[in-house]
């Protein structure tokens, strides 16, 4: 298990992560979401050992990842802009990674070479953004990491390659019990592949739970009530957002679906429908609670 324990990171006076704590179960695909500048990439860099936290630690099975050769050998971090030297090719990087990473799989590398449309002898720096990410991912997957840290991995990839990558990630999790942490704003893709999700805002964790639980803990309700119903009829509900058009109320309510249904039925609605939220809707709802919504930005 990967444990984030009271991690604090400052860049000068700016606090990027503030006493952050949560756990990521082994073998899960963890989606790290959050507003811009919330600290997602910083957290990934701390987990991968690039940054040393100013307080707390990122631990895997009780060991800090910072300056830990063994744990870093079992991890791979692809940053939001993977770096390649001018003369780097997949082939010569493979030579380096083969010697650096103890779990490097030549078979896996050859499989991936045949899978991705990338010339292994071509200079990576001359490739498109998407191709560069594919190259980075080929090398990362070939190291057979136990912890794969991906920052905005879906950026610049075409839909087919996205599907391919999601498939490969899921296969790896199943085969190797790899823990994958993906930081992304592409919530649609995350929804497909993640089983856990963590929402970070202003250096703190707002939400961290299984994706299904996160999605099931918040619901959108469309309900039409009779004329006799007063304004305070929903005051007992944990309402995140409410809108009214005539007799139609559109509500976002936190809580158990059955309990909400039962209580709303008690109001004798003329029409009621309980709809599941997408991850994006969950994100927006939670961020609105945290004060990060478009109305606040426009103020």
């Amino acid at each position, binding site marked *: 298990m990967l444990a984030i324990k009271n991690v604090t990171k400052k860049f000068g006076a700016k606090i990027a992560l503030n006493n952050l704590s949560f756990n990521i179960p082994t073998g899960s695909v963890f989606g790290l979401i959050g507003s811009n500048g919330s600290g997602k990439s910083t957290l990934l860099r701390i987990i991968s*050992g690039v940054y040393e936290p100013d307080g707390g630690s990122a631990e895997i099975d009780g060991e800090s990842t910072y*300056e*830990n*050769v063994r744990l870093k050998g079992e991890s791979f*971090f692809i*940053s939001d802009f993977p770096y390649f030297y001018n003369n780097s090719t997949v082939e010569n990087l493979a030579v380096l990674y083969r010697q*650096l*990473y103890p779990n490097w799989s030549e078979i896996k590398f050859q499989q991936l070479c045949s899978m991705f449309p990338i010339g292994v002898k071509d200079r990576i720096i001359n490739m498109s953004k998407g191709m560069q990410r594919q190259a980075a991912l080929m090398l990362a997957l070939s190291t057979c990491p136990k912890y794969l840290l991906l920052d905005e991995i879906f950026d610049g990839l075409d839909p087919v390659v996205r599907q391919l990558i999601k498939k490969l990630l899921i296969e790896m999790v199943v085969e190797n019990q790899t823990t994958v942490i993906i930081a992304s704003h592409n919530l649609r893709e995350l929804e497909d592949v993640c089983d856990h999700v963590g929402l970070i805002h202003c250096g703190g964790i707002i939400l961290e739970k299984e994706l299904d639980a996160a999605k099931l803990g918040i619901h959108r309700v469309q309900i039409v009530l009779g004329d006799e119903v007063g304004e305070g009829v929903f005051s007992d509900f944990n309402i995140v957002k409410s809108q009214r058009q005539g007799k139609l109320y559109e509500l976002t309510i936190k809580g158990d679906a059955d309990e909400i249904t039962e209580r709303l039925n008690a109001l004798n609605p003329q029409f009621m429908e309980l709809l599941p939220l997408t991850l994006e809707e969950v994100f927006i709802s939670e961020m609105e609670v945290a004060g990060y919504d478009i109305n606040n930005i426009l103020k």
Partner: protein
Amino acid sequence: MTSTTFSNKGFFPLFKWALRQNRGLLIVYSIILLISGPILDGFIKLRISAENLDYVNMIDVELVSSLIYAFTAAIIVLISAVRTFSFLHNKRSVDMYGAFPVIRRTVFLSHILAGLLTTAVPYIIGMAAVMGITYYDGESLRLGAVMMLFTLLMIVASYLFTVLMAYCCGTSLDTVCVTIAVNGIWVGIFSLFKMIMSMMIPGCSVESILSSFADVAFAPLGFMVLGAKSYLTGGFTPVLTAGIVWSVLYIALVFVGCLFAANNRKAHTAQDGFSVKWLPRVTESGIAVIIGMAIGFVFALAQDSDKASMFTFSFWFIIGAAAAFAVVHIYFNKGVKCHWGKSIAVCSSVSAVCIAAVISLCGGWGIDTYIPSAGGVSSAEISVNGVGYSFGDAENIERVLGIHKLFVDGTTTDRPYSLSTSSIDNVEYLDVASESADDLEKVNDYDYDNTYPVSYKFKYKTKLGAEIVREYHMTSYKLVNTVDTDEMMGVIEELISSAEVKKQSALAAFDDEQRNRIQTASLNMVKFEKQYDKVQQTETYQCISHVDSVDLDKEQINELYAALKMDIEADDSFVPADWQWSSYTDESQLGDVYTILTLWSKDISGLYAELNNGQYASSVNTQVIVKENYKNTLAFLEKYNIKAIRYYSHSSTYADTEGGYEAMEKYIDSLSVNDLKALVDLYATGWLADCYDDFGIKLNDKQFDDYTAQLEQKIQEQQEWLLEDYTAYLADGGTAIQIDDWTLCSVLDSLAEFTQQYFIHLEK
């Protein structure tokens, strides 16, 4: 538990990777070395043959070629270090390296080793190849190896220092700027500090403050200067040995600094300012002070008055420092939004310089009054106009200290001192209107008349190994009035005629086993009156004409040594040949001729003799003036017929001057018929120099039957040949024909052959 042990597993892959990144630079550097080696070799050989360089000049050429190599290495070091560690200055590459399964120390060690191999190995191979090709004897190779050692120390130290700066800076540009700035600041501040101190404090010599080793102590790119100094001094001195020890210590310190920085550098500082916050403060303060000092110095030099110089220096120092600080501060802060609160460092530095200046002007350091005690000095050296003599004898040390005291007593009355620009070039710009005619005349005695030596340097080596240097220039009218020159010169005369100087000057030459050749030469003293700024001047001309060299065997050397030793020891008024203010100079009459005996070392390489058209090369030559009372030595020269004097070259133009003509005329009178060869040379020279009539008459007076007529005809033939085949020209109004030495020599050789045949004819 966190594993922080050194990982061999990660080291070699990263080392190979870093080496791969440096491959291009390695190839370029190797090509530069490959091409420059033969070019330097060719250049050296070309200069030797074209300019007839002797051994001493050869060392200069070798030094220049070594410095070119060292300078190239310094540039490559800077490029390689910044390039190899540029991953620290890019957030994306920091991500890549930071995530590698290695500790930071391993990244540092693997890259530093790759970088050093890239720079040091090609240098070693290239330099060794050049030394093998161009350096010809053991001594050159030894000096070359010393130069190589210091350059290697420079490479390692500079590489590590640049890497340390790379760890401290956020960008590669900052790394380059700060590396160059810190190197330059140290050297610049010390150079200017020493120069300004020597302008302020009487006796304070540039050498006396700190040695050249300290000049570059914290400027690793300057470590090659130590190598150059060892080259020039011919080997290791205690200071240079200390330089090596310091270099190694410096390398160790910077290496530890690099390890600390590698472990503690915040990864996020890439592309963002400095990881060490005080570095830009120190750098901008240093640059501000050095620019301020330089600007103050330049403006001070433009002033005539000493007091104005001090005020001007202070004013422009502060202005220059403030301006430089503002510019550098804006650069480091990436914009015009300056943090003036951070200017405390530069204010402190400027204040420190001002306080140091005030202390200096008041003589607060004690440099102006300090004279070492006789008991604490192991050797004392006095240099007069650059000619130095060293003394170890207690009595002589006391004499040197006594002379030094005369200067101290004569200068310390002027406190507080002023900033004297005159010490820069040893010329006092006197305000003539405000000084008395007596003062002016006295200074002129030193400045123009050359009656007394102008510069005096005292160098002491203490028994603890320290070196103390003081330097005074008699171009100041204050000194002229306060120092009793006659008393001082009397003591100096005692010193230079001491047994110690006798041993140092002439007889020491025989200690050299390889010294096996002598040359004789004549020294003509010519004096004539000359107007100079309405002051009657008397100038002394020396004309030295060489004769052919003579090789001596071991027995002859011993014989010469015995003869010379007897003569020198018996000579109560002995003065070394390089002493210009001796009694023989004063007593010499117009046209007096002395013989100078030059002792040369054996040319062990055999190469220079070939390249120098038969001239002999030597690392050291020693001259002895053979006076008329040197009976034993003159007898030796007579015995082996080593006294022929041939005039050529200078005498052609020299004969055309009034004094020169008189000297030659007197010389001809002194020659006997047996010196026919010398007479022929003079005759021919005079003929060619358009003074034929004068010398012809003299020669005809000697009554050589029809020889002169035949000789004249022969010379005429030679002249026609000269005019046809050489770039000789005739100037209007009877000016001498200018002919180069070797052309004239060949003419004279031809005439000598004719003379020899004539004598054979006469004998028959």
